[in-house]
C-alpha cells in the first residue's frame, strides 16, 4: 500500500499537468481578485449597481460561478479571510479541482499503465486509496498556491487596505472547505473510474460545481416535503451546497453538518471507487 502511495505521488510530481494546474491557479487567483476589484470600482461609480448587489438573495438556488463582493470594501478595510471565503464560496476551486482530478485519474486508464501493475496486486482496489491520497496532496497544493496567489494579487491591487483579522476562523473555514473539496475530488474520481473516461467526470463535476444540481435537490426536497417530512432540505447535505455556504458567520451546527457530509461522501466514494477497481476487468 505504502509503495502504491509513493508511486502515485511520484507520478503527481512528475506530471506536467500538475505544474500547469498550479500555474493556472496563480492566473485564476489574479483573475478573481481583478474581477472583484472591477466590481468594487463599478459599485463606486454606479450607485444603482451597488443597490442591486445588496439585494441579491443568497438563499435562492443559483447556477454559475458567482462572486458577491461586499460594498463595504469600497472605502473600508478588506479582511483577507472574507476575501478568501468569498472566492472559495464562488466554487471556482471546485471547478479547478474537477479538472485536476479528471486529468490525474484518467491518465493511467487512458495510456494503460494500470495494466503493468493492477494484475499483480492481490487487492487492486487499493489503487483507488493510493490515488485518493495523491489527489489529497494535489488539492492541498492547489489550496496553498491559490491562497498565496490571492493574497499577493490582493496586496498588489489594494495594498494596506487588505487586513488580516481573524486567522483562527480562517483556519476553521479552510479545514472544512478542504474536506468538502477533497470529498468532491473523490466523487469526481469515482465518476472517472466508473465511466472509464474523463468527459463524463468533467461535465458532471463542472455542472455540479456551477450549481446545476441545486434545482434537482430542491425538486427532491419538495417531493420529500409532500411525503410529510417538511423540514428536510437535501441541499444542506450536499458537498457543493456546503462549499457555497461555509463562511465566518456560519453556525457550529452548519460547520458540523458540512464536516459530516464531507466525511460521509469521502468514505462512500472511496469505497465505491475501490469496489469498481476490484470487481471490473482492467482494459
Amino acid at each position, binding site marked *: 500500500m505504502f509503495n502504491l502511495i509513493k508511486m502515485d505521488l511520484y507520478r503527481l510530481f512528475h*506530471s506536467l499537468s500538475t505544474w500547469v494546474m498550479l500555474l493556472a491557479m496563480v492566473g485564476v487567483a489574479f483573475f478573481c481578485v481583478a474581477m472583484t476589484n472591477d466590481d468594487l470600482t463599478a459599485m463606486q461609480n454606479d450607485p444603482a449597481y451597488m443597490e442591486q448587489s445588496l439585494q441579491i438573495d443568497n438563499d435562492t438556488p443559483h447556477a454559475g460561478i458567482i462572486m458577491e463582493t461586499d460594498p463595504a470594501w469600497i472605502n473600508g478595510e478588506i479582511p483577507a479571510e472574507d476575501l478568501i471565503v468569498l472566492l472559495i464560496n464562488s466554487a471556482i476551486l471546485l471547478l479547478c479541482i474537477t479538472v485536476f482530478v479528471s486529468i490525474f485519474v484518467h491518465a493511467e486508464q487512458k*495510456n*494503460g499503465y494500470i*495494466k503493468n*501493475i493492477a*494484475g499483480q496486486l*492481490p487487492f487492486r482496489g487499493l489503487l483507488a486509496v493510493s490515488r485518493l491520497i495523491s489527489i489529497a496532496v494535489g488539492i492541498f497544493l492547489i489550496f496553498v498556491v491559490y491562497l498565496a496567489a490571492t493574497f499577493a494579487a490582493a496586496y498588489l491591487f489594494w495594498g494596506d487596505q487588505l487586513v488580516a483579522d481573524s486567522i483562527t476562523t480562517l483556519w476553521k473555514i479552510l479545514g472544512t472547505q478542504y474536506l468538502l473539496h477533497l470529498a468532491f475530488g473523490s466523487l469526481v474520481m469515482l465518476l472517472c473510474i466508473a465511466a472509464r473516461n474523463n468527459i463524463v467526470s468533467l461535465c458532471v463535476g463542472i455542472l455540479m460545481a456551477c450549481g446545476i444540481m441545486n434545482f434537482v435537490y430542491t425538486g427532491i426536497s419538495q417531493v420529500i416535503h409532500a411525503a410529510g417530512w417538511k423540514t428536510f432540505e437535501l441541499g444542506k447535505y450536499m458537498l457543493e451546497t456546503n462549499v457555497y455556504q461555509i463562511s465566518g458567520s456560519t453556525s457550529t451546527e452548519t460547520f458540523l453538518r458540512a464536516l459530516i457530509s464531507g466525511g460521509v461522501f469521502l468514505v462512500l466514494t472511496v469505497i465505491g471507487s475501490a469496489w469498481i477497481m476490484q470487481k471490473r476487468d482492467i482494459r
Partner: protein
Amino acid sequence: MEYLLTTSGLTKRYGRAKAVDHLNLHIRPGDIYGLIGRNGAGKTTLLRMLSGLASPTEGEISLFGETGRDARRAMSRIGTLIESPGVYPGMTAAENLKLKCIAVGIRRKHYIEELLELVGLADTGKKKVRNFSVGMKQRLGIALALVGEPDLIILDEPINGLDPQGIAQMRETLALLNHEKDITFIISSHILEELSKLATNYGIIHRGVLLQELTHEELLARCSERIELHTDNIRHTCVVLDRMNIQNYKVVDGDTIQIFERLDSGGEITMQLAKEGIKTLGISVKNEALEDYYLNLTGGKQNV
C-alpha cells in the same frame, strides 16, 4: 511442481459470446509457450485472465501450484505486456520504469539502467516516450514486464512494430532470459515463423477453443509433407483426384493443388491425369510450413 501454470475449463463470456471456451492450458517451468491464433481467436482475453486483469466467467487458474486466492497472490510473480505497452507519454523511459519499481518496492541502484540496457533503450536519456517509435515503446513495455524479476512473463504480440533487427535482438534477449534466469514465457503472436524460432511449446487457439497443445518437436513432426501438383486444368484434376479417392487436398491457385495424403502416389496420379488428357506441368513433394499446418488445423485444410 510439474506445471507452472494450468487452467481448468477457463471460460470468459461477453454477453452471450464466449471469447474463451473451457480452455485447459498446461505450461511447464522454463517453457517458452507460443500461443497461436488468428485475430479475435481469444488470445488476448486468455492472456488478460492469466495476468489477473480480467476475471474468468468460469474455470480455474492454477499458478505455481496454487489455486484460488493463493493463486491471486502468486500473480505478483508475473510480468505482463498485454496489447499495446501501457506507458506515460510525458515521462522518460527511466521515469516509467521508476514508477513500477516504486510500486513493487525495488530500490536497487542501477536497476533501471540495467533494464534499459537489456532492451536496447540505454541511449534514450531524457527523451519523452511520446517521441519514441512504436518499436521503442514495445521494448519499454517489455522492460516494464521484466521489473521485479518475475518467474513468468506474459507477452502479447511483443514483436509488433519491431524492425527485423529489433525482432532478432528481442528473440535473443528473451532466449537469454529464459536460459540464464529460468524465466518462463507465454508469447502470443500471429507471426508464426518468428514464434517457431523461439517457442518450445505451442498452444493453438481458434474461436476461443484450444485446438492443440504440442511441443516444438511434435510440431515439426506434424508439419507433414505434401505433394504439390501443377496442371493445366485444375477443375478436371479435382475430378480425377476424387475418382482416385484422394480427399485431403487443397486448391492453392489457378494451376496448383496441394495433396496431403498418399505421398508416394505421384506416379499414379500423373498417369491418371495423362489418361484424362490433363497435362502435368510439375509435381514435387514438399514439407508443410508452420503457417500451413496452422491454417489446415483451423479450417484452411477444407477442400476449396
